[in-house]
């Protein structure tokens, strides 16, 4: 499994949101996308998931253009946890997670015993079994995010795209979900691409970092290569100290007080 982007550009209006992006992502790796607000992180996720169409350039999955897949087949390849996790009608948590099986259930049939079993297993793993009969719109932001997460995992796709999927979770659940994702990257050979704001979490958990600035790829590689004081200054305009931390076995960023 490989995702390849070649010279991809996209813009909403006048300014370019993504400029001539090229890069490829391969199985068994955890990629993190970092960059300031408005640098095109979400747009990049939307382009890969096929939600947005690039103005120019190609996006290919296993050498086939994303748009050659039917919507349903694409939903069996790519699962997305988007930033917006509001649900407009009072579905129960269980119903929401069962929606993750939608691409596998044919139009007029009911979910099979296997589907139900998968849903229950994932609710258990994500620690939301006790919420299963609650209404989704009555939960807290972090709980709802875990439900959306479980729904995306339920899709059982080789590619998982996370757009600030941990933003409302407490540290316990953030680490639990990251552990879960990391494990599936290794065991199921998944591709995970995750947008992060926390540079230290990104550095600790991912195999590769993509640094975006104004829609351009500023750096792409392991955190040892990409996470430097110069790049952080250039991209975020903040002073920082970057050090290898032996507890997390990765570089960590500190922001000194003046």
């Amino acid at each position: 499994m490989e995702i390849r982007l070649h010279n991809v550009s996209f813009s909403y209006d006048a300014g370019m949101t993504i400029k001539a992006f090229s890069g490829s992502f391969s199985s068994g790796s955890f990629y993190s996308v970092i960059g300031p607000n408005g640098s095109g992180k979400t747009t990049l996720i939307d382009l890969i998931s096929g939600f947005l169409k690039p103005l120019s350039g190609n996006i290919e999955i296993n050498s086939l253009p994303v748009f050659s897949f039917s919507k349903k087949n694409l939903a069996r390849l790519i699962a997305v946890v988007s930033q917006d996790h509001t649900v407009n009608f009072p579905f129960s948590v269980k119903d929401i997670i069962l929606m993750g099986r939608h691409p596998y259930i044919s139009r007029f049939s009911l979910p099979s015993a296997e589907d139900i079993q998968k849903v229950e297993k994932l609710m258990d793993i994500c620690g939301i079994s006790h919420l299963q009969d609650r209404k989704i719109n009555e939960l807290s932001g972090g709980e709802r995010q875990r439900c959306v997460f479980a729904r995306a995992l339920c899709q059982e796709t080789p590619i998982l795209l996370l757009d600030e999927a941990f933003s409302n979770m407490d540290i316990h659940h953030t680490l639990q979900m990251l552990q879960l994702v990391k494990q599936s990257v290794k065991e199921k050979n998944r591709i995970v691409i995750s947008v992060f704001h926390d540079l230290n979490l990104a550095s600790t958990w991912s195999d590769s970092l993509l640094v975006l600035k104004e829609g351009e790829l500023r750096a792409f590689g392991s955190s040892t290569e990409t996470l430097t004081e110069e790049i952080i200054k250039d991209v975020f305009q903040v002073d920082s100290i970057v050090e290898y931390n032996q507890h997390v076995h990765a570089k960590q960023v500190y922001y000194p007080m003046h």
Partner: protein
Amino acid sequence: MGYIRIPITDIFQILITKTASSLYSFKDINETHLAVIMDVRLPRILSCACVGAALALSGVLFQGILLNPLADPYTLGVSAGAAFGACIAIILNLSNAFVSVPVFSFIGACLTLFSVIFLSYSPKNPTAGLSSNNLILSGVIVAAILSAGISFLKFIANEQVSVIIFWLMGSFASKTWSNVFIIMIFLMAGFFVSIFFARDLNLISLGAKSASSLGVDLKKVIFILLLSGSLLAAVCVSISGIIGFVGLLVPHMVRFITGPDNRKLIPLSMLSGAILLLFADTITRAVLPHEIPIGVLTALTGGPVFCWIFKKNRFK
């Protein structure tokens, strides 16, 4: 019940004779009663039930697509368009031709729908274009223009003003079998389309991105369901004038019982809508001393009920 009292046994005799005359027929049927039942009351009852079901279904579709439990079949200005069309037909005195008012109002409703979709659609970003905010805003703008147009038509209408006003208030009086067949065809088609896309409609409530990532072809599904909902509303308005609150209230109340799953919500809302409107029409026709327009009755009773539900829910 009604102005002419017909014993219930006679009603059954008439119905049996008409539906299964080959099996059994009654000899002593009153000719007037036969005409009253077959040509006046039955078409009225059936068209009323169908309009109730169609309005409720249309309400479910609009609330689902616009992600707004307060949307109704008239949110996109379909009713204003239909009313405008009807006013033109009345003013041009085409109403003698008997089909022209429904036909004009249907055309008016369809033109309004297409201008609303045209306004909110942007070719550059098709999925975001048909977002609920864009649609509601375009609907409000178009409806405002049209209602000013209706006021103008009323102003220049002279003596036909009362015809316009009565038409706008809605009524099932003097419905014919052709009305029943038209609404029935639209209702069946609308039902099959919406049941076909019921699960996609469920997923749309997760928001555009999530629905898309779960395999819903948003542009196609939204367009088809929007079209079905609006055509249903348009055909209802063209047959019976503007009947408010059924499309808003019924899906709401049914959702309390079935939950938000559209696969249950659609059929049950249709059934409840039919029963509710039939009940209301029977009250206006047979219980009240004078027949009042049904649109007035549904708004007068539905409005307060809605206020109560809304208030109760906010403080739950």
